[in-house]
């Protein structure tokens, strides 16, 4: 774990977030992503160097529009960089075909979206089973029930998403990600739409996953939440401007307040 953290600020030099990490799960080298919007070229990511290992609970913070979602999408092989290489779970995805990237997503990563993206026609149990089915795991039903129990929703198996509260829906989404059994968990503002208590619950589940060996990346613009992570990566204008333990040291989830 690197000591201290660099000062963040506009125009700050970018930080090489590979230092001190082996990059066994995630390995980004000089990743740049540009979007062409009409005549304007938008640089969403600008020379990202990042290593993340297993059993890591990493928070990615930064203001809106700084590139957090884009970064997560690169790691999740939903998107490919304009330049640079992305290696996830030992597979290089930056130059891979759509089909190979789909296979990578299927067996290496799982997503938790800010807007949940649950299947509205499926029940909670079926949504979670989908995760296991997608990853081609046997006995998906049992896995799904276990995952739902893990997020405290053993009672709501047969409810449709619209019958659940926002927090419950997000927990279903987490259970769905867990049911895939994939080693990398990518959560984009998973607590963004939730109240404090629900947010805490969700963080707890995510932390447990990291403790059990998964690589968990959580995007948040809430610095308080970032405090419970092992490692906080700060983005600004598409660059990593700081990387290290939370400011003021890692906090316990129970101590959080926001």
């Amino acid at each position, binding site marked *: 774990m690197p000591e201290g953290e660099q000062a963040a600020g506009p125009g700050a030099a970018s930080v090489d977030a590979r230092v001190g990490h082996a990059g066994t799960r995630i390995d980004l080298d000089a990743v740049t992503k540009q979007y062409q919007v009409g005549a304007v070229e938008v640089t969403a990511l600008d020379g990202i160097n990042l290593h993340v290992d297993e059993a890591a609970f990493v928070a990615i913070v930064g203001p809106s529009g700084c590139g957090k979602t884009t970064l997560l999408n690169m790691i999740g092989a939903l998107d490919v960089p304009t330049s640079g290489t992305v290696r996830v779970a030992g597979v290089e995805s930056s130059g891979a075909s759509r089909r190979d990237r789909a296979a990578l997503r299927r067996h290496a990563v799982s997503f938790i979206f800010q807007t949940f993206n649950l299947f509205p*026609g499926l029940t909670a149990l079926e949504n979670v089973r989908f995760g296991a089915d*997608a990853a081609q795991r046997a006995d998906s039903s049992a896995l799904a029930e276990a995952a739902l129990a893990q997020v405290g929703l053993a009672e709501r198996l047969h409810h449709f998403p619209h019958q659940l509260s926002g927090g419950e829906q997000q927990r279903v989404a987490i259970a769905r990600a867990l049911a895939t059994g994939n080693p990398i968990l990518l959560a984009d503002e998973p607590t963004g739409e939730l109240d404090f208590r629900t947010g805490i619950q969700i963080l707890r589940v995510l932390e447990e996953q990291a403790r059990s060996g998964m690589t968990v990346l959580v995007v948040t613009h809430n610095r308080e939440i970032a405090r419970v992570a092992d490692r906080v990566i700060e983005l600004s204008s598409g660059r990593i401007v700081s990387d290290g333990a939370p400011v003021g040291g890692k906090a316990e989830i129970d101590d959080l307040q926001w």
Partner: protein
Amino acid sequence: MFWLRWSWRDLRSRWVAVVAIALVLAIGTGVYAGLGSTATWRRQSNDASFSALSMHDLRVSLSPGTFTEQDTLLDAAAAIASADSIDAVAERLVTDNQVDTGGADSVLVPARLVGMTFGSERPVDEVWIRDGTEPAQEEAVLEAKFADDRGLPGTGVVTVASGRSITYSGLGVAPEDFFYEGPEGSIFAEGELAILYVPLATAQDLVDRPGTVNDLVLTLEPDADRDVVQAQLASQMADAGLSATVSTREDADAVRVLYEDIDNDQRFWNALSALVLGAAALAAFNLVTRIVEAQRRELGIGMALGVPRRQLAIRPLLVGLQVAVIGTIAGLGIGVLVGNAFADLLESFLPLPIHRTPFQFGVFAQAAALGLVVPVAASAVPVWRALRVEPIEAIRTGHLTAKTSRLTDWTGRVTLPGSTMNQMPLRNVMRNLRRAFLTAVGVGAAITALVGVLGMLDSFQRTLDQAADEFNKSDPDRVVVQLDTFHPADSSIVTAIGDAPSVAHIDAGLRLPVTALAVDSDDDLDLLVELIDFDRAAWTPTFAQGDEVAGENTIVLARKAADDLGLQVGDVVAVRHPVRVDAERFVLSETDHLVSGIHANPIRTFAFLDVAAADRFGLEGAVNVVQAYPASDASAADVQRSIFGLDGVASSQPIARVTQAIDQALDRFLSFFVVTAAAVLALALLISFNATRITVEERQREHATMQAFGLPVRTVLAVVVKESVLVGVAATAIGVGAGAIFVQWMLASLATTTLPDVGIGLYVAPSTIAIAVIVGIVAVATAPLFLIGRLRRMNLPDTLRVME
């Protein structure tokens, strides 16, 4: 203007959908305009044709077999008090004859020789020369429908009864022959009567009656009182000692039939076009509604931002307006196309010199009005629903559109078998049953129209086949010989037919017109009963029901006749029939008959009695019709030829020609169906494809989510296909069911108006079901395959990012 630009962007981004829906409406309005125009076209074409050839207003015909000196009739007409009212007048010599067409496919048929004046300054009943030239002296013009039916060339030589040959210089038709009845009063006359139009002198020469005439045709001044002139002519003829009848233009079969059917037929086409337009409108409504519903969230945001609702409504409403406008313009084009197809058909069926088929803006406007209103209303409904609610609810429209109705919430407890990928299609359908149902109804409407049209074709075709099977069953080459009057069964004429070299054997019988009295209505039926020796005749009717013809007091009816008379097997029917009292005299009598069975011929007129009933008619041992079976090395034509000249033979017709003629008569109807069916098939495919496309658009986010979890595109596609199939199965079931009901309803209305003489049963052929399944299920299920590129190119991050 900002809103317009925005909406232009909308249009560009979904022009495929807008144009496709517009096309759906366009086909609907086009077919409606095309089918709805035929009545006007027919009336205008008839008017123009009759007037162009100066169809007579009055006709004076001398009694059959009587003639008078040339100019006698002209003088008589000039002598009437209202002679000023006469515009033009022409004398003619009209005689029955026979024609042998000669050549390899030579046929011998009854003929009519019309001696008349060609190239007159003021013609009456002029001949329209379709092919070739006006006849010189000693030449003729052959009636064109006959020539077409018999496949004769545009010019040629034929032989008439006296054995003399005459060259025909062209093919043509006089207005009174636009339609004519056959020798036996059947509607299947084309090809059974050869009319030769010849110069008067030539006619007189051919029939060896120089200087005589027997017919006078007149046209009147526009302000003339026709009834008065008719009466004066009649009395003038009587005064001149001539036995003559004076008939009017409307008495002519051609005028009666060509105008009579128009309204009946139009009612029929109206029902069909209403079905097609209705299906298109329903489907367009459904599709536009779904497109606009997708914009509800934006409406909510607008409302939250305080934009006036009226202003917000404009944009989605414009989608409807665009569909309406494009649909109307395209409908005009398709209307012209479909109209042209129908106009061509009409021209090929109606042997008129002049066809008037102007585009019917009035009919088109009716359909276009609906075409304009439907998409606008379809966009207004969801807009109204969105603007009615609180902004916050509209923003959460993701939940709204995704919301299951309370009704289906309980289905969460139902565990579905298989993997979640297999459950998803059914769950998606159940989640929004209303929408799935509406989509199924939209596609189903198109299938209804398709099954409606094809089912009519099927029902007609099967009826025709039934009739043909029944007619042809003993020997399709048998020839029905009608005798001129009643002859003893052992008379020389009957023996002569039996002894003809090409005839193997004969069955002689009786064919009589009778009237069956309806049980509890005034709708008595005229029937043609045939008295058959059921034990010995080679041809006897097939029994669809019952089987016994027990003695003289039983009758076998067509199903349609029994139904129309309110009878069932075992009932007794009163029959009014002629009874011969002496050689020349008949009286009418009523006797009761037991309905012992129903025969298999769908044509209502035919009824059968046992030959034992002959004495009820005073005709024991008499015959007037002979079935002649050709010898093994002879054809029907040989039989006809060998008996044609026989004294006592009125006419002969191979039974195969009867079915062939029915076939032709029905073709008229059927080809309209074929054009309509093609349009409807296009309509159904468009609707299927659009409905699926919109479903795929609506499910984009879910498809992106599946792909985010690494599912290959083909698995996602399989989910879409399965969901489409579910809706397609429902749509097909709705369509086939409703289509069959439509056909049933049409047939019921046909049964009383357009085709009362034929009992047409509902029949939807397996091929029609197959086409319905192809359109409703296969097309719906394969439509997503065309969207595979779209799925593959889907921008996953952007689709997933979209906040609902």
